[in-house]
């Protein structure tokens, strides 16, 4: 029994160390933002300052990169969300002997290194005279982000009760009306989640982007190039802002998801209540 307890304690200790390992680097980076040192570090501490935020704001290259990143992310959303939905609908509907093969093709971008997706996109479009830039970045990223969207939409679609579809048709709806009024509203939460994830994936992508971005710059490419040349704590300031934005987003997303679960549980309770009144 004692050794069991020791083991349980060991596991807990391990978990604590693990989360320290996960967050300490981010905290160090955040702290370095406020150090009045020419280099991003916390040792030695040369005094506390906010000036790196000012320098960041004055950096026109950063603003350009940020607007490029947003542009790319929007472009990726416009491509990957419809493709992902269409693919999920396809897989959910079609039965054919070719399906395992098509399925493997659909999953392949998830199992291909990002650099290779970037390279093949770059090579493919060269023959049409298209060279690296925003356009190819959108295409390259959408290639694998579409598959992520598909997985998320698929997870919900598989739980869809298809008698709902039949009921709609039976009540006189056309297939299009059924699609618009029944299926899409059902998929909406998954589509929204997928859109959020797709946006973030695009925004933070580096490996694919590096090969297709050409002379344009996205925010991640900008950060990476800053780290290698001309490194100042302004990069930390940017990182800190990005981290805060993502953390807020992540928590909001999670809270929303849990609210929805709670809402489902609540309407279930209302049902039980109605049920018990019925019997009384």
């Amino acid at each position: 029994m004692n050794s069991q307890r020791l083991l349980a304690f060991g596991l807990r200790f391990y978990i604590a160390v693990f989360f320290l390992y996960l967050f300490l680097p981010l905290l160090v980076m955040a702290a370095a933002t406020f150090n009045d040192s020419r280099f991003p570090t916390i040792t030695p501490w040369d005094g506390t300052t906010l000036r790196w935020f000012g320098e960041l704001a004055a950096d026109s290259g950063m603003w350009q990169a940020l607007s490029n990143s947003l542009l790319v992310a929007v472009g990726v959303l416009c491509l990957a969300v419809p493709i992902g939905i269409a693919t999920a609908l396809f897989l959910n509907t079609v039965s054919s002997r070719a399906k395992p093969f098509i399925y493997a093709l659909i999953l392949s971008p998830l199992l291909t290194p990002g650099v290779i997706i970037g390279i093949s996109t770059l090579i493919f479009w060269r023959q049409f005279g298209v060279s690296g830039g925003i356009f190819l970045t959108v295409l390259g990223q959408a290639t694998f982000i579409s598959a992520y969207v598909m997985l998320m939409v698929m997870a919900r679609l598989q739980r869809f009760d298809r008698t709902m579809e039949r009921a709609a048709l039976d009540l006189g709806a056309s297939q299009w009306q059924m699609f618009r009024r029944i299926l899409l509203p059902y998929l909406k939460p998954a589509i929204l989640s997928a859109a959020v994830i797709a946006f973030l994936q695009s925004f933070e992508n580096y490996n694919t982007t590096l090969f297709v971005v050409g002379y344009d710059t996205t925010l991640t490419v900008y950060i990476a190039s800053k780290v290698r040349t001309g490194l100042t704590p302004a990069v930390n300031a940017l990182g800190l802002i990005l981290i805060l934005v993502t953390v807020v987003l992540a928590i909001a997303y999670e809270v929303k998801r849990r609210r929805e679960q709670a809402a489902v549980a609540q309407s279930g309770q209302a049902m039980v209540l109605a049920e018990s009144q019925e019997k009384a």
Partner: protein
Amino acid sequence: MFRQLSERFGRPVAMAILTLLGMWLMVMVTLPQLQMIDYSFRPNLLPAQLGGPEDVWTLSNYVTLFNNEIHRAIFFKTLWSSVLVTLLTLVVSYPLAYYLAKVATPRQAALCILLLIIPFWINEILRTYSWFIILAFRGPLNEILLALGLIDRPIRFLSGDGGVMVGMVYAYILFMVFPLYNAIESLDDNQIRAARDLGAGNVRTHWRIVIPHAKPGIATGCIMTFMLAAGSYAVPALLGSPGSRWFTQIIYNWFFEGGNWNQGAAYAFLLLVLCIGFMSLVMKFFKVGLGDIAK
């Protein structure tokens, strides 16, 4: 296929579905890959020579790699280091995944998962950059070690492969934790209890019950982590030094410094083959299919 789709959604939607899917699979997934492979088997020619007598299929780009000792060494180093990163990540993740799935209360597990997801949402570059600060020559890690008297002089962490591997484990750990967690979670608690009742020790319970059950998760995690590690550009670029280059960096150089895309395509294709090979091996070893991985 069109008939099944149009029976369910009507002709316009069916058409849209097939167009989107076909466009994606052809123009974005398949043709670019094929073109890259085709490129890798052609010599690097001037635009004027394209379609001329020298524009034929050749193995010369692959021969180049074979003959270049440095590149060959980097290729194999990338392979071994990625395997090592994968194993390290697996070892680090397993206790955590087990804790989340079987030991923690639902409340604790939910909190831990939220904590795990947050860094996952943060940019890979930033996560790597944070290690760059920690491992710097005058960074906090060296300062602490010096203060503790464990070392006399600061260590250059950022000049070898060690820093790169630490950064990779950090960057990709969640791709291991989540598949593992999902797989272990689906194991019936009673099986663990039964094994304990039958007198199996901790190690034995894990070895005989938990790990075999978690196979698909282990396979998925390993495949994803290896693919990300072998294909990583950001981490070695930030945490490595010129002496510890990664294969992806060689590929990059062929494209944007050497100006030889055909050579780069050959190297890229080899990297792809490496990943596919690793994937097939893992799938065979753990006896799992593609369907298990997509979960």
